[in-house]
């Protein structure tokens, strides 16, 4: 009761107004972030439900739980929901929305109403997607490959395509808002080389959202038109070219991987210096590596098409360029490691996720190099090796970063502390469950188990059982934070303004922040990650 009295004293963005209207019509970036948090969590559980059914079907070699057609729909919708409705909006629309203005000392994003519009577009897309799932679903895979999607599939391709088209606009508007905000709304003294690296990562992400998303949007329009009117653009029997679809699709969908992973890298770059009490090693290199990942990311798309019938010379060039992306990624990994070197590390929950991220992202990245190698790629194309690889990046990487970030900034968002020991336990469960789920899939793929089948030869069963068991553990690891975050909103300890002794403007305002973020417009006259001059909090030191 005493805690409730303390929070009631200060006006903040949560208690300034009450009622459903004050949320649905809000233009406050922090409230919109929470709207996004609720919606993407909803879709995370839908996508997770599909994943669970997939893993249950694969528990036995026979196709016994679901029919082949149902299985096709399950993995298609798992991919579409997780990618377009969870991972792509996850960090940018929740943590980015909340933190970008706070970190640069602005009162809001440049276009608050467009920000709200982007959430409504997301919701319209989401409703369409749910309607599509309830009325039969879609079975094209998340990739919508033609001519299957345009001429053969008799599921709801048009509806799913339109849903993703609309969610794309929501993503474009978020990116546009961030770029303008970062360019035009920085507080006095917040120069480009003082920006938190989280901001640099979001800047790079936004550029990809702006330049990549329109291409997939127009591609989906063409697929919808072709399916409805039989144009022939992607139909080889009418002079069209299905490979053109793949080029256009991957022109966005490879960079889309960086829309998912770059924000996570930004989160980890905030967490590591804080819990090592050290300035980030090589600030400029980390910042520029984000930009170069965004740029190189646009030049490698055809590595998804090595066996699809592109010319050998094209394949060679795309293979070499794909290796090039490893350079800025490795720069980041080395700089994180160098930051930890001789740091005084606290093994708190966000830091555990950051450790998990660095390790799993490295594994995912290195196996990406296997896939970029022409010879090896022929062997493992369309096998579980690919599935394991991109789950190491998207779940081991992007999702770990998201969870780490949620724990790191939860005190700022909610004004409450989550239970630290439970947090560490959950982080450990997620890490173990993740590896148990996806490491066996590397072996399965290398042994030749193809992806997207509901049956498999009996000799693959042991590894599949391990994977399914891991998925169950992972599910527990995801449910735990949801439960204790909700619990902490009421019963958690009241959070101080800066519980971690972290640098950054967002920690210099109250927890939770007031509606316009700062009581006094901040002026920055210090360098980023100035941990030599910030005292570590006592509580975090003693290990909580």
């Amino acid at each position: 009761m005493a805690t409730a009295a303390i929070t009631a004293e200060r006006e903040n963005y949560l208690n300034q107004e009450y009622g459903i209207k004050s949320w649905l019509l809000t233009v406050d970036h922090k409230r919109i972030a929470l709207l996004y948090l609720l919606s993407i969590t909803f879709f995370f559980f839908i996508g997770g439900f599909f994943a669970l059914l997939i893993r249950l079907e694969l528990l036995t070699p026979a196709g016994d739980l679901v029919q082949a057609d149902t299985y096709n729909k399950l993995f298609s919708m798992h991919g579409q929901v997780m990618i377009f409705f969870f991972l792509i909006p996850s960090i940018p629309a929740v943590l980015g929305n909340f933190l970008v203005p706070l970190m640069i000392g602005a009162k809001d994003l440049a276009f608050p109403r467009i920000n709200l519009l982007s959430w409504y577009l997301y919701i319209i897309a989401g409703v369409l997607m749910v309607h599509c799932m309830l009325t039969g679903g879609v079975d094209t895979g998340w990739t919508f490959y033609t001519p299957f999607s345009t001429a053969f599939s008799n599921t709801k391709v048009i509806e799913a395509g339109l849903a993703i088209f609309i969610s794309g606009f929501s993503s474009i508007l978020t990116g546009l808002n961030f770029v303008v905000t970062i360019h035009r709304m920085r507080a006095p003294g917040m120069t480009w080389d003082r920006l938190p690296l989280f901001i640099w990562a979001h800047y790079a992400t936004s550029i990809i959202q702006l330049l990549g998303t329109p291409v997939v949007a127009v591609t989906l329009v063409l697929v919808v038109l072709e399916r409805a009117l039989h144009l022939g653009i992607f139909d080889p029997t009418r002079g069209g070219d299905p490979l053109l679809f793949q080029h256009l699709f991957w022109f966005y969908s490879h960079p889309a991987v960086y829309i998912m992973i770059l924000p996570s890298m930004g989160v980890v770059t905030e967490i590591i210096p804080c819990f090592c009490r050290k300035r980030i090693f090589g600030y400029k290199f980390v910042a520029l590596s984000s930009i170069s990942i965004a740029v190189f990311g646009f030049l490698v798309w055809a590595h998804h098409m090595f066996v699809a019938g592109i010319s050998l010379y094209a394949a060679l060039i795309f293979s070499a360029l794909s290796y090039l992306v490893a350079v800025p990624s490795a720069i980041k990994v080395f700089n994180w490691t160098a930051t930890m070197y001789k740091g005084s590390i606290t093994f708190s929950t966000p830091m555990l996720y950051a450790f998990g991220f660095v390790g799993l992202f490295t594994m995912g990245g290195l196996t990406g190099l296997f896939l970029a190698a022409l010879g090896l790629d022929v062997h493992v194309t369309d096998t579980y090796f690919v599935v394991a690889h991109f789950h190491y990046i998207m779940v081991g990487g992007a999702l770990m970063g998201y969870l780490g970030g949620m724990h790191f900034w939860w005190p700022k968002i909610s004004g409450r502390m989550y239970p630290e020991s439970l947090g560490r336990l959950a982080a450990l469960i997620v890490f173990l469950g993740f590896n148990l789920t996806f490491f066996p899939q590397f072996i399965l793929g290398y042994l030749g188990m193809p992806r997207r089948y509901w049956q498999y030869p009996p000799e693959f069963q042991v590894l599949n059982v391990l994977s399914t068991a891991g998925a169950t553990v992972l599910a527990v690891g995801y449910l735990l934070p949801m439960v204790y975050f909700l619990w902490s909103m009421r019963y958690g300890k009241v959070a101080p303004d800066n519980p971690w002794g972290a640098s950054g403007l967002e920690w210099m305002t109250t927890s939770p922040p007031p509606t316009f973020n700062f009581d006094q417009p901040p002026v920055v006259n210090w360098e980023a990650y100035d941990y030599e001059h910030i005292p570590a909090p006592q509580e975090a030191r003693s290990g909580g």
Partner: protein
Amino acid sequence: MADSPIAVEHHNPALKHHFADMEQQREASSLGMWLFLATEIMFFGGMFCAYLIYRLWYFPDFGAASNSLDITLGAVNTAVLICSSLTVVMAVRAAQLGKRQQQVIYLALTLVLGLAFLGVKAVEWTSKFKEHHIPGPTFNFEGSIPSHPDQPVDQHHAQIFFSLYFAMTGMHALHMVIGVGIFSYLLYHAWKGTYTPEYYTPLENSGLYWHFVDIVWIYLFPLLYLIDRKK
């Protein structure tokens, strides 16, 4: 909110709460519009890319299909759009000089020209519909390759040309319709006197949009109408 110290700086009623001054607000809106136009370039870029590939593959059929388009109407429309870009610029200039009446006249002219463009487009599409040049089950294109009159045109390849023609001009026309909507809104506000020499950002940014749509057409006209016109 209203009694916070920042409120004192609210000189212009058009200044939103989260900007420090009009200059910052104007620059933010302008950058936002340019970025939006960049996404538009990528959006149309996907279709231009498809066009380029099929034009290289099926050049003779594309030439024949292109010759069936009405070059006079296309040229008239090009002139109409270029004129409308001029009237947009004149409207912005009038706002900068604070001349409300001129603003209203130029915006009205822009609207008329925009609607004229759409009207001509509708006439063109209707004739294509009558000639069975709409892609789909009833598609039928009679004709021969311009340089080899004895060689008939491949139906499938001609259909791809018309698919791209309708996708590109249709998407362009959709942008025109949106533009007409925006300019009706601007006309209403110009008439009410919303735009002043201190605040005319919506006019300027909508102008950028209009010019962009104009430029897309300037590319579409030669690419679709003038493929192989030599006599």
